């Protein structure tokens, strides 16, 4: 789609002056105004825009919070309390930022599921997908590190557990862990480097997001049929069509966000994080933030040794693999058909996978005892089987449904059936 040459014609003198020196107006015109998008995009496609808004919001609220926050083990907790009580609108900033992280993850998970359902990772969008997975990884690192900053009990013990992951790596593990901590345990040097990284990573994220959108604009958007754009009747202009739809999606999403920010500001948090960090006492029920729970359940599911790999390394390996496997999806799925709309069996396995991840999330919030462990093990098994068995094998044996020849045909067919239904 990028091949199509620019239709931009500078109209005023200033526009002409810029166009000859730095064609920024041309870039905006070509990328966000006349850029062609498939005419059948649904609301699942508005989450990219929503994610961009959330990233901007996190950066703006974060930078202002940083003006009032002190990264010192003796002062951090109190400085956050000061933000909550004394700083003008500080409560609002912090509520926006901490709930913003949660809503950022809600959006990214829906965005990823959209990709998995409509096969958006398939050629030629492999790199687009891999960049997206990199974004997820950066988001996770940023959110984990940010959660350490208020220096509550969950901050401290979350940091202890997560940095210990690295000690499971043979030979270099301990060294990496000490490098992360700046010592042998979570302490002031840890908090200082975490604050520096928490400031840095979102800007790296913004950089990778730019690459992600660039790649998107080279290959064009996928759509619910998974059929490539073939003619001009398949597309509409980005503005006003996608702009308005995205704006509406963003507003609805922000309604939900605002509800939490103003009415349930601590609902997604944990009360133990309002107790200052105590290195001598682990809270009785330690859980990570909700958006890490499925991965936490996978970590805890490996309670057994596998040959030379002990349960600790095994758990850490399984947990990292659960993210790593996402990067490989473009090469694991062997189906020639992109969209689950035309894949009757994939659809079933996909929804089972979604249910499985939600189930893992619930298990992650339960104590790691008795039946919960067994259930986590089964759910972990399906998590990996979906990627490693279902994706490669199903593509070879499944008979897809009949597909329309073009997006236009799909849209007209749908309209015809709905008109008939109304009669």
């Amino acid at each position: 789609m990028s091949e199509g040459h620019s239709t931009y014609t500078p109209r005023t003198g200033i526009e002409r002056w810029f166009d000859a020196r730095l064609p920024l107006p041309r870039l905006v015109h070509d990328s966000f105004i006349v850029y062609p998008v498939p005419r059948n995009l649904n609301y699942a496609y508005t989450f990219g825009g929503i994610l961009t808004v959330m990233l901007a919001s996190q950066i703006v609220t974060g930078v202002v919070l940083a003006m009032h926050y002190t990264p010192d083990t003796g002062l951090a907790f109190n400085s956050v309390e000061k933000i909550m009580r004394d700083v003008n609108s500080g409560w609002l900033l912090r509520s926006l930022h901490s709930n913003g992280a949660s809503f950022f993850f809600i959006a990214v998970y829906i965005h990823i599921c959209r990709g998995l359902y409509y096969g958006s990772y398939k050629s030629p969008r492999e790199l687009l997908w891999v960049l997206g997975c990199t974004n997820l990884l950066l988001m996770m690192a940023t959110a984990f590190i940010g959660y350490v900053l208020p220096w509550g009990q969950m901050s401290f013990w979350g940091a202890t557990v997560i940095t210990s992951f690295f000690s499971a790596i043979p030979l270099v593990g301990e060294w990496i862990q000490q490098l992360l901590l700046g010592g042998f345990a979570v302490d002031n040097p840890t908090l200082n480097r975490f604050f520096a990284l928490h400031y840095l990573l979102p800007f790296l994220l913004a950089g990778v997001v730019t690459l992600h959108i660039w790649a998107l604009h080279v290959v064009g958007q996928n759509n619910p049929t998974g059929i490539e754009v073939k003619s001009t009747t398949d597309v509409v202009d980005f503005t006003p069509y996608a702009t308005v739809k995205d704006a509406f999606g963003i507003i609805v999403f922000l309604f939900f966000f605002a509800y939490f920010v103003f009415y349930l500001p601590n609902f997604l948090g944990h009360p133990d994080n309002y107790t200052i960090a105590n290195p001598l006492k682990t809270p009785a029920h330690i859980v990570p933030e909700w958006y890490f729970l499925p991965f936490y359940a996978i970590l805890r599911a490996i309670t057994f040794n596998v040959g030379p790999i002990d349960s600790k390394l095994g758990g850490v390996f399984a947990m990292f693999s659960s993210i790593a496997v996402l990067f490989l999806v473009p090469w694991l799925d062997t189906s020639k058909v992109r969209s689950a709309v035309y894949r009757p069996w994939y659809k079933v396995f996909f929804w089972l996978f979604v249910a499985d991840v939600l189930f893992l999330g619930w298990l992650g919030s339960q104590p790691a005892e008795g039946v919960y462990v067994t259930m986590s093990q089964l759910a972990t098994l399906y998590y990996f089987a979906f990627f490693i068995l279902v994706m490669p094998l199903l593509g070879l044996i499944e008979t897809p449904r009949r597909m329309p020849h073009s997006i236009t045909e799909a849209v007209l067919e749908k309209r015809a059936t709905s008109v008939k239904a109304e009669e």
Partner: protein
Amino acid sequence: MADLSEPETGTDEHTLLAEAPASVEVDVASLTPGMSLVVQWRGKPVVVRNRTEQEMKDGEAVKLADLKDPIARNANLPADAPATDANRTTPGKEALLVMVQVCTHLGCIPLGQEGDFGGWLCPCHGSQYDTAGRIRKGPAPENMAVPVFQFTSDTKIRLG
């Protein structure tokens, strides 16, 4: 470890931490059976538990073959000493278990006298230790460590 951490400016309980010296004297005279005390040693909690008759019996009854980690992990014994109940304690002082109370999985502090084996239960990912602090169930790979220590008198222990 103490040298690495910055002087604390906070007023809360962990101010004590930073000053932890390399060796610590512990008076265990007041520990009656069934009681534990925790001291801070090199930034880590070390528990001294005066085990009950029942706890000792339970610890001795365990067969080595049933242990996930068959090594004593006792810094006062050779590195390959087997994890018998006796090897987790000191000859003549079998009731007193001295142990770094840090989970060998990912570093949380297990809760005492909890779990299926009557020893320790880690709240983080559910590792369970028996009455001799040996890992029995869950993701932790090793028994909790017995630190270097010695009895300086009948009722005094020096750690380190």
